[in-house]
């Protein structure tokens, strides 16, 4: 019996190639998205799930309650030690201080140099008791116990020496400290947020930083983290209460109210966007619903087409009934056909997913793999759901046909039901695609706005190169040599560009006030050319005079506004920064510029010369001779710093990187919108084919009565305009709500105006018109004699 069903199903598909193609394509696309989204979500859910006792592992974090609440996943360096010494709530507590973008060199005949993006981590040995990163070589009991020891992954060992047998080899960090490799770690799994591959003895931290942070409670370096493994049955509340005690012991006055320390469960780390979590749960849910919607759309499509086909199958069903088939048997026959289509579609979907996974990995910089043990049941369930969702409706409808009517071709609309159902389905599909279209337009508009709005400074044709020295005379020589390079128009020594991911924020005291100002100030060190090179404008006062250390200061408008003063009122007032170490008069106020992405607010900023902080050289170059200038710059740089690794970046590229996540989001939403539109069009095509068949006689009669082709086309057009408008009115508020939430992540943003909605509906209409147009035209130009005779 089943063989017979499949045979019929196969022959039917072969006969109705267009129908089979549309069904399979739509379903395959939907299932592909389902598989990919499932993989993506399960990948993110699997993050750091391989540690022992995951429910007892926590990370410390800091909260500042200072008017607004600020959060950071980092804590002051002494916190971990103080917690360990004062409380007996945890089995293990470890501090790990990481520095990114470090230089590793391998001593030897010819020195090899590597820039490590994820950097190195000064780590207490307990770290490896808390988190499960196993050693493959070395002794677990005394790793990193003594100074100058290093632990590297197998991957790094192979990269440096081509072999993993490297115990006893030496690496040198930033040309400052040498470490001996005493252990090799198993390569990190892809699903961890702990990206460091080089761990060195914590004891060397002070030597590396030149300053003693070991007892500095007043500041937080973003790389300074601490993990703890709680004893069983210790509650989070107890630990947080203990941490509150630590605050009382180490902070005074207002600070004791501002500073708060808490612990965050391991399972929250990957998802908590406030604490640098990578995958916001919000976006994962959004993806989940998009995937669900795409599968629903594909099913809807399938039902749509299958019931439209039902008329053609009516005769066969009638015969089968007369031959003694039971409704149940017919039902299963249609289920078998659906199952066949679904299996073929799933087959293509799996291939498609295999092909597109590398693209997605590329987009997210991730290393996702298909986990077939998990994916296989998922696909199986999807198949079951799709088969029964889309097979049972046509199955039931067809199985209920009155055989005599079917045989006499007297079946009409009311027997195979649901033109109105079909309409509802198309409206649902188009609502989904319009939500995605509106989403795409808004993300594009916001990105365009972020990247094309005047940032308040000049970002074009500016090259940044690192300055790995504290030696003033070396800096000046380098600057002079750069200035002589053909094509370099201007050069300045600075800490960072006006907009940068690296910022240095310190406390600030204005005009000898009794209390420091809230929120601190972002200090941008730069020499006298800083303003002119970056095109910053003064609104009051003057630029500072050339100097090597801070004698005079500039502040920005935001800082003045926070003081509730006018720009001219602050000129000449004394400002004290850097924990009262640096005190100087304000000589000018610069016009506000965006000092980070549009996601964050403009900070209070001060600009002053201070050669201790200079870590970059900014060069304004002539783009016509950029290649030769860059080559000369590299040569000069390498002569000056033979031990360091040269790199350069264009400022506008670095700024574009602020929006990396937004660009990923854009690509995703574009892809999903395209697929949703495609599936929607397939559904629309199904509907118009169905209408064309149904209206054959009506069209024939109308044409005989003198209707023109335009009249006939309008028969179709009227119907679809109505459906699309309904879809639009459903989609618009949903999209408005969703995208409003998205834009909340931006401080500086576009407003969602009517033009966005107009654009969306216009594009949908054009797409729909193209889809419907062909089939409708064919129906309209058919010779009426033919269509009437066939009745």
């Amino acid at each position, binding site marked *: *019996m089943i063989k*017979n069903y499949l*045979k*019929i199903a196969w*022959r*039917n598909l072969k*006969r109705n190639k267009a129908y089979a193609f549309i069904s399979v394509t739509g379903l395959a696309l939907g299932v592909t998205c389902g598989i990919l989204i499932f993989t993506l979500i399960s990948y993110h859910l699997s993050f750091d799930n391989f540690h022992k006792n995951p429910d007892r592992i926590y990370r410390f974090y800091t909260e500042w309650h200072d008017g607004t609440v600020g959060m950071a996943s980092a804590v002051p360096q002494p916190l971990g030690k103080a917690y360990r010494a004062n409380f007996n709530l945890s089995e293990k507590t470890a501090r790990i201080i990481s520095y990114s973008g470090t230089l590793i060199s391998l001593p030897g005949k010819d020195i090899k140099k590597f820039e490590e993006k994820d950097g190195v981590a000064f780590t207490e040995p307990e770290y490896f008791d808390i988190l499960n990163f196993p050693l493959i070589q070395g002794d677990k009991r005394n790793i990193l116990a003594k100074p100058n020891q290093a632990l590297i992954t197998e991957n790094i060992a192979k990269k440096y020496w081509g072999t993993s047998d490297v115990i006893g080899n030496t690496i040198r960090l930033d040309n400052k400290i040498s470490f001996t490799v005493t252990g090799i770690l198993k390569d990190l799994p892809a699903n961890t947020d702990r990206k460091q591959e080089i761990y060195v003895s914590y004891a060397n931290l002070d030597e590396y930083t030149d300053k003693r942070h070991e007892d500095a409670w007043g500041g937080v370096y973003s790389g300074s983290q601490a993990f703890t493994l709680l004893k069983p049955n210790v509650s989070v509340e107890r630990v947080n209460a203990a941490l509150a005690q630590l605050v009382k012991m180490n902070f005074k006055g207002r600070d004791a109210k501002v500073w708060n320390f808490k612990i965050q469960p391991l399972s929250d780390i990957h998802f908590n966007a406030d604490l640098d979590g990578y995958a916001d749960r919000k976006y994962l849910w959004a993806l989940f619903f998009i995937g669900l919607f795409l599968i629903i759309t594909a099913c809807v499509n399938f039902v749509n087409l299958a019931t439209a086909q039902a008329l053609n199958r009516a*005769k*066969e069903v*009638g*015969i*089968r009934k*007369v*031959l*003694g*088939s*039971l409704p149940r*048997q017919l039902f299963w026959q249609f289920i078998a056909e659906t199952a066949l289509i679904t299996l073929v579609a799933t087959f293509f979907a799996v291939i498609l997913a295999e092909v597109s996974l590398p693209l997605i990995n590329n987009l997210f910089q991730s290393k996702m793999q298909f986990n077939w043990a998990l994916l296989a049941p998922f696909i199986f369930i999807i198949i079951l759901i799709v088969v029964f969702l889309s097979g049972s409706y046509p199955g039931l409808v067809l199985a209920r046909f009155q*055989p*005599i009517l079917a*045989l006499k071709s007297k079946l009409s609309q009311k027997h195979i039901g649901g033109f109105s159902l079909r309409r509802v389905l198309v409206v649902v599909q188009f609502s989904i695609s319009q939500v995605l279209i509106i989403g795409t337009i808004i993300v594009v508009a916001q990105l365009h706005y972020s990247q094309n709005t005047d940032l308040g400074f000049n970002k074009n044709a500016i090259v940044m190169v690192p300055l790995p020295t504290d030696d003033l005379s070396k800096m000046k020589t380098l600057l002079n040599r750069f200035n002589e390079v053909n094509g370099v128009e201007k050069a300045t020594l600075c800490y960072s560009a006006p907009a940068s991911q690296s910022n240095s924020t310190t406390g600030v005291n204005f005009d000898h006030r009794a209390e420091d100002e809230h929120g601190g100030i972002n200090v941008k060190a730069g020499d006298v050319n800083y303003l002119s090179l970056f095109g910053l404008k003064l609104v009051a006062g003057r630029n500072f005079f050339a100097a090597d250390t801070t004698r005079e200061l500039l502040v920005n408008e935001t800082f003045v506004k926070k003081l509730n003063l006018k720009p001219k009122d602050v000129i000449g007032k004394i400002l004290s920064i850097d924990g009262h170490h640096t005190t100087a008069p304000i000589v000018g106020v610069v016009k506000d510029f965006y000092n980070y992405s549009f996601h964050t607010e403009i900070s209070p900023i001060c600009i002053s010369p201070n050669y201790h902080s200079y870590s970059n050289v900014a060069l304004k170059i002539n783009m016509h001779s950029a290649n030769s200038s860059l080559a000369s710059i590299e040569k000069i740089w390498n002569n000056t710093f033979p031990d360091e690794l040269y790199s350069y970046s264009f400022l506008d590229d670095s700024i574009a990187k602020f929006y990396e996540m937004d660009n990923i989001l854009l690509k995703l939403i574009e892809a999903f919108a395209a697929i949703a539109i495609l599936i929607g069009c397939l559904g629309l095509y199904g509907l118009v084919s169905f209408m064309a068949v149904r209206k054959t006689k009506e069209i024939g009669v109308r044409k005989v009565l003198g209707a023109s082709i335009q009249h006939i086309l309008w028969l179709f057009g009227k119907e679809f305009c109505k459906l699309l408008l309904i879809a639009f009115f459903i989609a618009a508020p949903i999209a408005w709500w969703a995208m409003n939430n998205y834009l909340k992540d931006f401080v500086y943003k576009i407003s969602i105006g009517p033009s966005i909605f107009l654009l969306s509906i216009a594009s949908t209409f054009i797409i729909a018109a193209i889809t419907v147009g062909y089939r409708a035209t064919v129906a309209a130009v058919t010779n009426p004699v033919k269509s009437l005779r066939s009745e």
Partner: protein
Amino acid sequence: MLSLKNISKYHKAGSLKTTILQNINLDVDAGEFVSIMGPSGSGKSTLLNIIGMLDEPSEGYQYFLNEPVHQLKDKQRSALYKANIGFVFQAYHLIDELTVYENIETPLLYHDIKSGERKALVADMLDRFQIVGKKDLFPSQLSGGQQQLVGIARALIVSPKLLLADEPTGNLNSKQGDEIMELFSKLNKEEGMTIIQVTHSEKNAAYGTRIINLLDGTIESSKNI
């Protein structure tokens, strides 16, 4: 074999009532070959469909093999006709996607007959109608007469007690029609098959043992030959 008492059939469209059959009384015995005649719209096909339980009468009592059909539930009724009645149509109504062999086999599938037995039965039937050579062809590759042969073979494969034929020769030329009628006559005489056919043709009607004339939904005359 079957008996109709006061059978009426009408359609209601709003307040308009269209009568198709009115007060039909008819008994058919096993072994009869009945031809139902009458002009278009006289209710011939409807009567045949009611006999075949594809359609339900609006009023009246109907017995088939002593079972009160009007009292049976859908399931029992379809089981009854599935086991005892074979249909032959004017338009053959073969399934286009299936070969000759598969078309003949299909009713057996619905009778839950095992694969080995099915093969034997279909092979017998192909032999008997001398269409073995055509068993792998599709309906569209056959002439009308051949298609109707397949249709009859398919109707007979489950060995029904009653064969119902709705203008079986209506789409055929006279030579093909004669062959089909010869076949019916032979089935009736040699195997004692009860046959009821609807026909327009006096000549075809004459193959039977009784002719019933319908006019405007009532039996005008019934005569044995």
